């Protein structure tokens, strides 16, 4: 056996060849014999009671399979955390994209006409569309108070700090909905057979979420439901929960028709009906000493969950825990609330609440700096968390993190000081058409499920020997671009001292792979990877106990041993199940303790230029420096960061969902604008490795981190350029125009309100 040599190297992506040759099979590339196409008829109104469903003239309705709520064999819900979201509306509708009826036909063009010919007549009820309307409770649309969930983190004695403060700084920050905009729309194919049960093939992140939802909906035992992931063309959280809905619909149509049914959304339906990032509002009130030390603060974090609870409680939880950023708070009260509105449910999107609350924190740090007359660098430096200190949830930082060092390196890489000075000088000469600015964001992102989440999941991973002597990894963790297949194979190969080519990985199929948990929360490499490492070592142990390999062996000797074991015993398998690391404590009630087994840390710096004629902002340079533990695959890791930064730039400057009565009006790529190749700056990615002990070979989470920093760094840079604080994203040219031509800058009023 050699030393480590596969982790850390840029081995070829396992499914790369299929992807570059057009051979990779996505759900829409699959056709089954006698397959029908399925479609969804939706409510159209935000809230009301269904009175009558009319099937219009000119359609041969007899040719169509029609499914309503009466055709559901089990419970009418999409089982997730709670079961409040119906699969099909029965009496009431609570958002304008609520599914009411399903149709199937062999010809998808006929289907489109038929969907238009159905009219759902409703008695309309008053509806609510914003956080504030929901809070006023003029209409109660969910529970007794429109509140899905509240949490509170309380550390120290916050009521005592205000009298000791030299400054009290307040701010309110908002973020808008954001569409994941994976390029492959959501889609599923379902087939049903009375003996075999339901099988679905689809574009999805979490096979066992779909599996559970179908069991509940169809009243079928686990072995009668099979979920297979097809190649998945991007997800970003957008295929965490909604695939269960589409699978449910396709399954109902397949059961009723007795034929396979394909449901693939077109772009307009996907954008309008499926989940988006939760809109948010964060309020900060912070007590600061004369020396620029945070003494304590209150943070109120509120998200708009849409019409059903779905994942909002967990998004809220992650947002809340990240709300204090990478800073030391002697006292803090962070209260969070997820509220209901009559919009389609908001859901998972890379970062999962953290990009929202960290946007607020990092804008607020610049506000504090301004009030105190400190630089944005200095205020951060004076308040960074250090090893041994406690986070807001009273988790002791045990990682050897050095945020000052990260900061210094990022400042150097971006030439921050020289640029800031030069831009300030140049911006003063008002003849320049462009104003320039540079901004910073420092942040952290917890890897894995929050709190007791991983303990509840209790993920299982398998590794098996194959008849040809190779090794196969068995996980339900899915590949949708991040490199799951590649990195998990690297880990298994490394653990066994094999070549990368000796290891393959099963396509996630609930008949073939154990439940290694959902592919979310930056948990795959750190949590699942560690289990793969452990299961792989189990294989080595079995072969060693059988006397087939010694302490050292070549890859070919291992393969021979594997072959002979299988020919003798028939099967060579090893399983590993998650066990919480010792000394982990988490209190679900008080929200106190080890919120995450490990955090990744970062400092990002954005340089912007604002055109004073068009008010458009362009990002000119972007430095992304992070500490994510051991980088297992440099090319994939850079790809994760650069891609996340690009989505963050879109979140900050381009991507605005236009709502009208709970419906997305700009549900097209033509008018919902994501960054193109000519909109983006050079995104310069750097890693700092500090010798971390978590995860497989020291790797922590990476996937979500890069979504957190770009928006605040960019808005901080815009403030640096324009001397005007913008606290709401997306920030579009019209917002800047309106602000600069109308209201007086808030900078003076901030200073006035500071209690000195």
């Amino acid at each position, binding site marked *: 056996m050699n030393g480590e040599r596969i982790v850390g190297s840029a081995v070829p992506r396992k499914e790369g060849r299929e992807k*570059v040759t*057009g051979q990779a099979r996505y759900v*829409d590339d699959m056709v089954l014999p006698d397959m029908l196409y399925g479609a969804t008829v939706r409510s159209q109104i935000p809230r009301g009671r269904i009175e009558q469903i009319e099937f219009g003239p000119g359609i041969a309705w007899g040719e169509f399979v029609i499914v309503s709520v009466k055709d559901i064999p089990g419970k009418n819900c999409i089982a997730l955390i709670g079961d409040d979201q119906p699969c099909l509306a029965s009496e009431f509708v609570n958002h304008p994209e609520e599914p009411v009826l399903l149709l199937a036909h062999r010809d998808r063009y006929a289907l489109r006409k038929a969907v238009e010919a159905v009219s759902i007549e409703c008695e309309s009820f008053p509806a609510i569309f914003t956080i504030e309307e929901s809070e006023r409770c003029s209409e109660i649309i969910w529970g007794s108070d429109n509140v899905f969930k509240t949490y509170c983190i309380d550390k120290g004695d916050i009521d005592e700090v205000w009298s000791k403060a030299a400054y009290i700084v307040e701010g309110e920050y908002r973020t808008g909905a954001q569409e994941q905009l994976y390029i*492959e729309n959501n889609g599923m194919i379902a087939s049903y057979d009375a003996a075999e049960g339901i099988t679905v093939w689809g574009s999805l992140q979490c096979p066992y979420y779909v599996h559970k939802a179908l069991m509940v909906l169809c009243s079928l035992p686990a072995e009668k439901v099979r979920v297979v992931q097809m190649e998945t063309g991007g997800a970003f959280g957008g295929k965490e929960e909604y695939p269960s809905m589409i699978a449910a619909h396709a399954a109902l149509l397949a059961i009723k028709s007795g034929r396979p049914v394909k449901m693939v959304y*077109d772009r307009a339906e996907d954008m309008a009906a499926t989940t988006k990032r939760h809109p948010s509002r964060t309020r900060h009130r912070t007590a600061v000493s004369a020396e620029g030390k945070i003494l304590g603060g209150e943070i109120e974090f509120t998200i708009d969950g849409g019409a059903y609870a779905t994942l909002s409680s967990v998004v809220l939880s992650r947002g809340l825990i990240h709300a204090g950023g990478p800073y030391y708070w002697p006292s803090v009260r962070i209260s969070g609330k997820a509220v209901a509105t009559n919009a389609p449910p908001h859901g998972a999107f890379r970062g999962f609440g953290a990009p929202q609350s960290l946007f607020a924190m990092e804008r607020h740090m610049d506000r504090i700096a301004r009030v105190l007359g400190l630089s944005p660098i200095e205020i951060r430096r004076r308040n960074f968390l250090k090893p041994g200190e406690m986070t807001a949830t009273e988790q002791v930082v045990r990682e050897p993190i050095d945020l000052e060092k990260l900061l210094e390196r990022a400042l150097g890489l971006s030439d921050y000081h020289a640029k800031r000075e030069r831009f300030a000088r140049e911006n003063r000469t008002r003849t320049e058409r462009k104003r320039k600015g540079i901004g910073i964001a420092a942040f952290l992102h917890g890897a894995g499920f929050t709190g007791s989440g991983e303990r509840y999941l209790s993920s299982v991973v398998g590794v098996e020997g194959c008849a040809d002597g190779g090794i196969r990894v068995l996980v339900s963790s899915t590949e949708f671009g991040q490199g799951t297949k590649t990195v998990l194979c690297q880990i298994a190969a490394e653990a066994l001292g094999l070549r990368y080519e000796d290891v393959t990985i099963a396509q996630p199929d609930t008949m073939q792979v154990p439940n290694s948990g959902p592919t979310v929360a930056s948990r795959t490499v750190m949590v699942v990877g560690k289990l793969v490492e452990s299961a792989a070592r189990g294989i080595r142990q079995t072969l060693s106990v059988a006397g087939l390999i010694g302490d050292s062996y070549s890859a070919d000797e291992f393969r021979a041993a594997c072959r002979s074991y299988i020919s003798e015993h028939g099967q060579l398998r090893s399983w590993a199940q998650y066990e919480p690391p010792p000394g982990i404590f988490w209190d679900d009630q008080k929200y106190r303790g080890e919120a995450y087994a490990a955090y990744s840390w970062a400092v990002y710096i954005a340089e912007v230029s604002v055109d004073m004629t068009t008010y458009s902002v362009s990002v000119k340079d972007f430095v992304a420096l992070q500490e994510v533990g051991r980088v297992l695959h440099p090319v994939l890791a850079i790809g994760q960061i*650069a891609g996340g930064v690009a989505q963050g730039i879109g979140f900050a400057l381009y991507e605005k969902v236009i709502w009208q009565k709970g419906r997305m009006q700009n549900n097209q790529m033509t008018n919902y604008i994501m960054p193109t190749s000519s909109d983006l700056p050079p995104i310069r990615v750097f890693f700092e490795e500090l010798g971390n002990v978590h995860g497989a070979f020291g790797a922590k989470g990476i996937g979500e981190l890069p979504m957190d920093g770009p928006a605040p760094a960019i808005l901080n840079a815009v403030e640096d350029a324009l001397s005007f604080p913008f606290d709401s994203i997306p920030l579009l040219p019209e917002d800047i125009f309106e602000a600069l031509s109308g209201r007086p800058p808030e900078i003076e009023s901030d200073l006035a309100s500071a209690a000195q």
Partner: protein
Amino acid sequence: MSDSPHSSRNRANSEISFMVNGERKLVRAFPMERLLDVLREQLGLTGAKEGCGEGECGSCSVLMNGTLVNSCLVPVLQADGASIVTIEGIAAGAQLHALQEAFLECGGAQCGICTPGMILAAFHLLRKKPDPTLEEIREGLSGNLCRCTGYVQIFEAVARAARGAETTSS
């Protein structure tokens, strides 16, 4: 609905003859049927993907008579007599094209859904400009959206393929 593809497809009233990846193909189709659907459904060439159906994302890109087109916007009638190249026609048998190799090495493909269109756009760019500047690459690929990569590694892949081609030809 007399002119919908549905009612007319049964009549399959137009015969379209074209070259696809160097082979002559004859299909019967409704004249306004999208080239994308004919390629995917009649010819089984599923490398071209539908991302938006309105010419914004470029994931259905193919080359038609050497020009990069969004096949979701091309009525198949317009392709009659044309020469079409899809992602399936880029590699020479098992030997990947330099662009495909470079996309693999540089991380230009993540989820892979935009990759066929992106590679064809890059292929088209390198035909026009064998040694493009970074700015020309950015501009040349700006009709093809990628949500995964932030484009950085795609630019690297195109630059590497261009350099590779130069080295081979010199």
